[in-house]
């Protein structure tokens, strides 16, 4: 049997006074996992551990059965990362942002252009916008460009940090639908961080609920709702339910 695409084994990470973990989690290839929880729960840190941007103090992070090491650039290129707001470099055009690494790796111009067109269609970004600077794009457009940049090298795993945070409700609804369509078409393993339960339920096959650095419960959105493992989980699910989708403010 193939190893899971992502596996966390008893991972512990200390950040000053706060400790995250021990956390154990697996994500099967092609599945989407949502990390859900209030701000400060440790969601973004788990994402950074998967990316290899920070090292665990204990335990192991495995991608396709192999441990993640911080200096391993070839492995890191097989993981795409979309930061909140897109994280676009303001000195490069949208196309320059997306093609930055490909260009550095020496892809010929024709190959870059073909890949850009393909990704623009997938992310539903009007191609003329590719020549704009990030400062000239709307928040939703910047997020689409950020997604394209993460997908440029066709990574096996895609990590998204609050992909819909800080967007107005209308943009949010449109981008949400386009993102899920893209995940389905690509069949990639996806981990996304959100504090919005509806968003998690919309995207994810499974969700992991974190609070205060601990993993409270992991399972399908349905299972969590039907059988919360603890009063804490029930309370969070109830509290997070109340605001209507899209009106929650980002962490």
């Amino acid at each position, binding site marked *: 049997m193939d190893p899971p695409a992502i596996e966390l084994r008893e991972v512990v990470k200390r950040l000053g006074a706060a400790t995250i973990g021990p956390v154990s989690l697996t994500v099967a290839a092609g599945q989407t996992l949502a990390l859900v929880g209030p701000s400060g729960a440790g969601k973004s840190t788990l994402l*950074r551990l998967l*990316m290899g*941007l920070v090292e665990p103090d204990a335990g192991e992070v495995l991608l396709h059965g192999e441990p993640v090491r911080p200096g391993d*650039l*070839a492995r*890191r*290129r097989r*993981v795409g*990362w979309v*930061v*909140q*707001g897109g*994280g*676009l*470099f*303001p*000195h*490069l*055009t949208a196309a320059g942002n997306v093609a*930055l*690494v490909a260009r*550095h790796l020496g892809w010929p111009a024709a190959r870059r252009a073909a890949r850009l067109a393909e990704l623009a269609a997938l992310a539903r970004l009007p191609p003329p916008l590719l020549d704009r*600077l*990030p*400062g000239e794009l709307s928040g939703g457009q910047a997020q689409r460009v950020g997604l394209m*940049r993460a997908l440029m090298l066709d990574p096996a795993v895609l990590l998204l940090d609050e992909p819909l945070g800080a967007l107005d409700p209308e943009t949010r609804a449109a981008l949400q639908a386009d993102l899920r369509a893209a995940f389905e078409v690509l069949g990639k393993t996806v981990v996304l961080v959100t504090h919005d339960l509806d968003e998690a339920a919309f995207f994810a096959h499974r969700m992991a609920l974190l609070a205060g650095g601990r993993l409270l419960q992991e399972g399908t959105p349905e299972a969590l709702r039907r059988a919360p493992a603890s009063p804490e989980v029930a309370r969070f699910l109830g509290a997070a339910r109340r605001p209507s989708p899209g009106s929650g403010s980002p962490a």
Partner: protein
Amino acid sequence: MTPALAAALCLALAAPPAPAPVMVGSKKFTESVVLAELAAQLVERAGLAAGRRAELGGSRVLWEALLRGDVDAYPEYTGTLTRELLAGEVAADADPEALRAALAARGVVMGAPLGFQDAYAVGLRREVAARLGLDSLSGLANHPGLRLAFSHEFLDRADGWPRLRDRYRLPQRGVRGLDHDLALRALAAGEIDATDLYTTDAEIERDGLVALRDDRGAFPEYQAVLLWRADLERRAPGAAAALRRLEGRIDERAMIAMNARAGLDRVPASRVAAGFLDRAFGPPPDGAPPQEAGLAARLLARTAEHLLLVGVALALAIALALPLGVWAALRPAAGRLILGAVGLVQTIPSLALLVLMIPLLGIGARPAVAALAVYGLLPIVRNVHSGLRGIPPELRESAEALALTRLARLRLVELPLASPSILAGVRTSAVIAVGTATLGALIGAGGYGQPILAGIRLASVPLLLEGAVPAALLALAVEGLFSLVERWLVPRGLRGPSRPAGR
């Protein structure tokens, strides 16, 4: 190497090298400039090439330059030799033979006295001296309220104010340091009561001053002499003989007259010197009077010198500061050390830094460039550091997540993002260099400082402006140039006040 190039090189090596001009130096007061001009013109009348390093910043600068060979000859005074430059090696009242021997050990020849003394004296306005009944230095002790101001060199020299104060037990406190020429003007204006004079100062007559009698022999002998390097005769046969023609030819009255012509009437020193030589030795064989360069030619030459100083210094500063700033930003511990060290250098007064460079690099453009480059480090290092540290964390993480190598991340993302800050640092550094380079003239680097020094020496506003106005214009031009460079270097997405780096 191509055959043609090789042939050209052989030819160049075979041809006798053009003899280097005999470099004559002078200190930054009129008498020294005139004496150096006399010496240089005598060398030229002997058919040799002569160059001038005029208005260098003090005895020590010239002495070092002579020992290093940056200068071949310069006028000096015996008292300065025994009490300052060779203090500890020869007795303060050493006889000429002992002095010659000490100089010979350093490879320096001292000519016979030129014929006059330029000793220190303390001068007052005639009516003040009369009112207080003062005619000798011992009388000064009875007037503790007198406002004294002395030239910086006089204040510092063992044979200057310290010796005067001790020998006559002078009670005056709060003695101020002033430039010699400024002190004379303050004295004439009544802002101070007494200052140090040289006994050949032209101002004694003009301003109605009296030089107090040195009744306890505090001041040493200051016979004017020419010094030259012992190897000069080998390199430029006839040069030493030409210099010796001046021995015993200038008496005190002649020197005061020349000082008055050059210092008060502002006749160029070259013309004053030529007039004296014509009277003393007859007109030169070729009969051509020395040519004064026109304003445009002078400006052009000064601008070229100044631009060279600033340009090379700035290039060096950038080449050094960029890696230092990057290192400081990447390694916080090293960063504190680097920023601290570079900041410390900045606290050294610019003039002191210039003079510190002389033992290492001699005089001229090289030490000035080195000092300016060191001076230009801080703004650039600081702005590279703050520009890189100021990159928003989400952008830094994005770059890291894109799996670029460290170097590629720096080149493709971080340095471009920091470029507005870096360029602002370079601009600050350039403007500072344009201003500070005017001090370079003190160590023989030329530039716009040269007319400023002459302007201070001669109290000539037009000369001052000849240096100050182009320096100011150059600073403005540098500002303008950097606005253009910014448009060209800083990416469009980072330009303009509305969108600083990162967002």
